[in-house]
């Protein structure tokens, strides 16, 4: 397994610049996630790392060695796609053995058997070995596809939205298993997704891509608790963060038309700016400072989304369990002030302290 570094990668296609000066690196054994919306450049990045696509400028190194001129085969990476791309008429065993039997590797059959059996055990698909892959369910097929990557014992796993074709329940289950497997194997993984929950739950670290540029890199905690821009703040978290136009007035922060007013933080705030409040940080409380009317409730079971109107201002609040509030109720609430986010007119996080 390997350490990988991308330095100033730029990639242009005839009509668009797909990647602009993209740099990031991840360590041996790390689960690194590229998160971004469609068209952000995630898959292009992955293909460049694999050697399936050539960058226009910048370099990629693996364990300190430049790999720019290496062919995909020489890079020794295993790709897992959204589409499983298995051979439907072969058994699960033969599908898994296939990459090992290739002329390039010519692994002896007894060793193939050991590797295949060990991989299928980890993926809990040992009982399927004799089945043709065409007879498998979607979740089983994706396990086989992952197994086929594992048996090769590559230096690096590249995964391109491998869970997005599965239904919600299955995706959840496989997410947990994939993460467990990655940690027990210590395999270095570069994982691409547009799904923020996948990124938060699976990653050791995340790079957020938007329009071909890296907007922020960090642990899930960094990304969620200290989003670098309003784009990142809105990308992670469901329901979405409340972003409110606010202004500074004599030591306090005001949100017009809402009655919201909190002590100004020790930050260098401009006169007007955006204040971000995560829905879970708006908490109904009979003794709360602020008032609102409930305009809609969405009970999801484990939690409830309350749509509030504080004056003219719509706010989302996320409360645990099946909330007792009803549409039309007048409620009081508090805001967790140490968790507020502030963004300047350039949409960047204001982190600089007031002098």
């Amino acid at each position, binding site marked *: 397994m390997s350490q990988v570094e991308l330095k100033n990668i730029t990639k242009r296609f005839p009509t668009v610049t797909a990647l602009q000066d993209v740099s990031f690196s991840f360590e041996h054994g790390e689960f690194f996630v590229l998160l971004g919306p469609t068209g952000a450049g995630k898959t292009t990045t992955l293909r460049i790392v694999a050697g399936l696509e050539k960058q226009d400028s910048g370099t990629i190194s693996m364990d300190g060695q430049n790999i720019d001129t290496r062919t995909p085969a020489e890079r020794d990476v295993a790709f897992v796609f959204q589409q499983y791309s298995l051979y439907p008429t072969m058994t699960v065993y033969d599908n898994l053995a296939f990459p090992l039997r290739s002329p390039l590797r010519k692994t002896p059959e007894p060793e193939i058997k050991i590797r295949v059996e060990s991989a299928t055990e980890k993926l*809990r698909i040992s009982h399927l070995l004799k089945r043709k892959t065409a007879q498998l369910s979607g979740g089983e097929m994706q396990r086989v596809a992952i197994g086929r990557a594992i048996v090769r014992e590559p230096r690096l796993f590249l995964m391109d939205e491998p869970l997005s074709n599965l*239904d*919600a*329940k299955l995706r*959840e289950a496989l*997410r*947990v298993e994939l*993460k*467990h497997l990655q*940690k*027990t194997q210590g395999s270095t993984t570069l994982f691409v997704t547009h*799904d923020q*929950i996948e990124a*938060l*739950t*699976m990653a050791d670290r995340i790079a957020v891509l938007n329009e071909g540029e890296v907007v922020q890199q960090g642990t*899930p*905690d960094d990304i*969620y608790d200290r989003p670098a821009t309003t784009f990142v703040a809105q990308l*992670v*978290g*469901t*329901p*979405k963060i409340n972003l409110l136009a606010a202004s500074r007035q004599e030591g306090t922060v005001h949100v017009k038309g809402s009655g919201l007013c909190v002590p100004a933080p020790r930050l260098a705030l401009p006169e007007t700016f955006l204040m971000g409040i*995560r*829905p*879970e940080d708006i908490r109904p409380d009979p003794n709360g400072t602020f008032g609102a009317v409930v*305009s*809609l409730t*969405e*009970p*999801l*079971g*484990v939690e409830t*989304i309350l*749509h509030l109107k504080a004056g003219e201002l719509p706010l989302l609040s*996320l409360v*645990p*369990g*099946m909330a007792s509030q009803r*549409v039309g109720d007048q409620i009081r609430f508090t805001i967790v002030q140490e968790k507020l986010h502030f963004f300047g007119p350039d949409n960047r996080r204001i982190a600089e302290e007031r002098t």
Partner: protein
Amino acid sequence: MATIQLSKVEKKFGDLHAVKPLDLTINDGEFVVLLGPSGCGKTTTLRMISGLEAVTGGRILLNGKEVTWKHPSERDMAFVFQFYALYSHLSVRQNIAFPLQAQGMKREAIDKRVNEVVDILRIRHLLRLRPGKLAGGDQQRVALARALVRRPAAFLMDEPLGALDAELRESMRAEIKNLHIAQHATTVYVTHDQIEAMAMGDRIVVMSKAEVQQVGTPVDVYYNPSNLFVARFIGSPGMNLVKGKFSGGAVRMAGNDRYEVPPAWQKPLADSLDGRDEVILGFRPEAARVTPDGSMAGEVYATDMHGGHTVLHVNICEGEIVHIRSDRQNTYPMGTPIRFAIDPEMVRFFNPRTEAAVRREAAR
């Protein structure tokens, strides 16, 4: 205004039931969701209500009058599909006006109605555009407007948000619900997405394998699922279900965990298992709490950060993994042994042979 009654409504294709005899009353102004995995019969049920599909048995009543064999156009219900079915060569205004023109309504009256609905759905600025120029969310708003403009007795919606991306789905979900709160039109809504069903429904009809599994409010189906299917299907992740044996007032599980059954459950449990001891213990992820003196033990299999909270996946015995919702700060390295307790108010039991929930109340 509409009350819709289904009485023993069924649909057979040859010997195969697409929908087994189904009784359901949808009250005036109610938002009822038909929920289930693909192939469960929910869409067929909706299509039978609309008249697009003929029943092979049973009766459908609208406001007490039989409409079972009436043509769809005589039922006064508006259908909204997943695919918007808009006319690409007509403008948004013409698309919305179309059903009224077809009824032969006067021009001024049509304009008045169209203006009303475009304000409700906030699409006035799109009136001159062709549907092809619109984003998915706006196309679905136009489709809703076209249904709304007819002022039908009831709305029938077949996965109207299914083609939209996650973010838009969430905001459109709230819009449709707001619309319903404002208009209070009887609505039957089909989806396979349990989150949508929970968020939107006054009542949810959970279906599986052509059969109704449970009819209830979101609170009912979440806290008191009638059987294992509903327990698993509702919730994300679903209810934790652990096999065990009931004896001496406790449930014993593989791996030597012993769960002391709360007093209120002792008799119902003994009564409903009729002599056998196999039982399934169920609890929602938020019903478990990590504590050193908890009666359940396991090893951390994975820890997931979900933003506002953490989900711990705990291996309690030979690959049996339960999910515990926990505070953000509670993260543990893989393999950490932990103990947890289950809130006695939130524990549930199921009979593994019948798959039915054990009822606390019925046995009293």
